[in-house]
């Protein structure tokens, strides 16, 4: 029971993080920018295919996803520092909010949980 709960939480975080990026993709697709949707659909497809293929490839896909979102968060943090210190642009300043900070922390937590989860095969 304890073991399964331990695996449910990372899986839940994993699914939510994928859905967040898919939402971002759809959001921008509605604004005629399709790159975020293409990339998020590619990732989701890769995860789905690897899940169907084998537990080992699914485990690898989760690691890849973890490193991807860590990179995304790092770039966002660097950008936020640049915005505060150098780029005094109104629109960019609006990007620094508690909601965005919470999102970054959530994704970093997801990446941590995914990297910590051992392959059960």
């Amino acid at each position: 029971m304890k073991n399964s709960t331990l695996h449910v939480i990372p899986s839940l975080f994993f699914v939510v993080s994928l859905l967040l990026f898919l939402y971002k993709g759809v959001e921008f697709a509605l604004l005629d920018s399709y790159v975020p949707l293409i990339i998020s659909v590619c990732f989701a497809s890769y995860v789905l295919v690897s899940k169907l293929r084998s537990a080992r490839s699914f485990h690898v896909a989760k690691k890849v996803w973890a490193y991807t979102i860590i990179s995304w968060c790092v770039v966002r943090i660097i950008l936020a520092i640049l915005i505060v210190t150098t780029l005094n642009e109104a629109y960019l300043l609006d990007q620094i909010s508690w909601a965005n900070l919470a999102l970054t922390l959530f994704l970093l937590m997801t990446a941590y949980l995914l990297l910590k989860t051992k392959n059960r095969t």
Partner: protein
Amino acid sequence: MHEKLFITFITSGLFALSFLCQATETEMTYQQTIVSDMSGHRKESPLLSRSTKLERQLTATYIENKLIKAGFSVNKHEYRYRNVNAILDLLLSPHSGTNVYTTLVATQASEHTVIIGAHYDSVPDSPGAGDNAAGVALLFGVLNRLKDIENRSVNYLFVFFDQEEDDEIGSKVFSEKLIREKMKVHSVHVSDISAWDNNKDRIISIQSPAPYLEDLYVRTADELSITLDIFGGASSDNKSFLLAGFNTVGVFGDVSEHHHKPTDTYENVDFVFLTLMTDLVSTALVKISEDIANEK
């Protein structure tokens, strides 16, 4: 008899002059109030600058209330827009903002619309009195003058753009909206940095006017004894409309040392020059109505 006529003439002249002075003073006071409110000059005003989303929302509401108070119906064009490139779309949220607009409908049915616009946002840490609270005040001045005209052969759409300081996003989205709605746009007149005249030469700059608009503004300036400086390029919201293929003109003052600085305050706004700009734009817009009436 002659003396009586002379006194009547002088009295009438003085009355007319005092009326004109009063009218000008009233309009100037009205414009001063707008600039004061929008730039945080008035102590009660919460708007110290108009750059963050919250500040821009407050400003949009201020303009909306001002329009309602003046008896106009208000439309809000709320938008979301992609970033300048797809990589940024991956990292950032979309742009979002609100263009506020009102239409002064023609008194004689017309399918043509003249757009008159000015942006209401500012850069961070700047009160933005000259850039561009003065432009907003100019629009209100023109709007009040045009509403009193009995015969209007064209619709006038007054639009207060959001996010000019962020790559002219507000006007870009608005120009796309006009195209999508297939609105018959006669011409687009954009005002920016409307109240700076560095060397007090009273020269008004006209940027990239379409041929008809160049002729129109030259005619109007001649009539009002105003000197124009006509130059190329596109440096404000007029760029969005120029690129979208509309007949466009930018009406500007000088680029001052206060531009995008914390010193862009109420005290550095030249309200006499703003009145001159209001005269030029409103007279040009009346001429468009007359030209269209004559064509019919």
